[in-house]
């Protein structure tokens, strides 16, 4: 099962939120929900469901140093597949055993249970380069984010 997302280097401005103030991990997840709402993928209530996932299973979504991938299951509050990138003004702790503090949050919404983000291989290509997360965290405008994603997503990394 696949679906079409815009290529990561063509993410719209609404899907990129930079240097958001977030006092704790819940606020950081809600920033991702705001961007998913602004980009038309989900309703604000999706943010509470992403928080509930972490309350239920722990901060397993912090999958690399400095990077959290917030998501919840499909539901009536998800209108379209979506992916957003949020950077935080100050890093926050999610309580992860190895990868805190988090400075970049990716928010993902899916509309079907067996859907995987079609661009997930591109995500892997991008973040296999460990310099990308700090570079994203330091980005000052959305064009710079798209440029970083474009530079890193070229599959010549192998």
């Amino acid at each position: 099962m696949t679906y079409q997302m815009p290529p990561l280097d063509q993410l719209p401005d609404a899907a990129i939120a930079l240097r958001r103030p977030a006092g704790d991990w819940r606020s950081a997840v809600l920033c991702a929900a705001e961007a998913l709402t602004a980009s038309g993928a989900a309703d604000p209530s999706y943010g509470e469901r992403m928080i509930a996932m972490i309350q239920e299973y722990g901060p397993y979504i912090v999958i690399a140093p400095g990077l959290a991938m917030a998501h919840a299951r499909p539901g009536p509050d998800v209108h379209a597949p979506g992916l957003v990138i949020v950077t935080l003004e100050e890093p926050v702790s999610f309580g992860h055993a190895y990868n805190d503090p988090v400075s970049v949050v990716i928010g993902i919404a899916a509309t079907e249970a067996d859907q995987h983000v079609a661009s997930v291989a591109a995500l892997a290509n991008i973040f296999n380069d460990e310099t990308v997360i700090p570079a994203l965290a330091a980005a000052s405008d959305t064009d710079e984010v798209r440029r970083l994603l474009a530079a890193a997503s070229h599959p010549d990394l192998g």
Partner: protein
Amino acid sequence: MKIVALCGAGIGTSEILRVNAVRALARLDIEADVSASDVAGVGAAAADAQVILTSPELVSAIGRTNADVVVIENYFDLDEITAKLEIAVG
């Protein structure tokens, strides 16, 4: 050989782990069927699996299994995934 990459919801993170596990296995020249599953489906998905890849937080949610449970710290670190898979399947 069957390997299951596990996450909470079955979208996003487990797929990242699956993609990078496939790359690590290619490095090791090992053939395996790698699937992604959520916690709710792990009993069925991992019934005949040899290895379950997951994050430290989800280990306690797996329950009884005959598979080797391999904890991955950084889902994007191919060196870590390759080294741990090599031990688990070696």
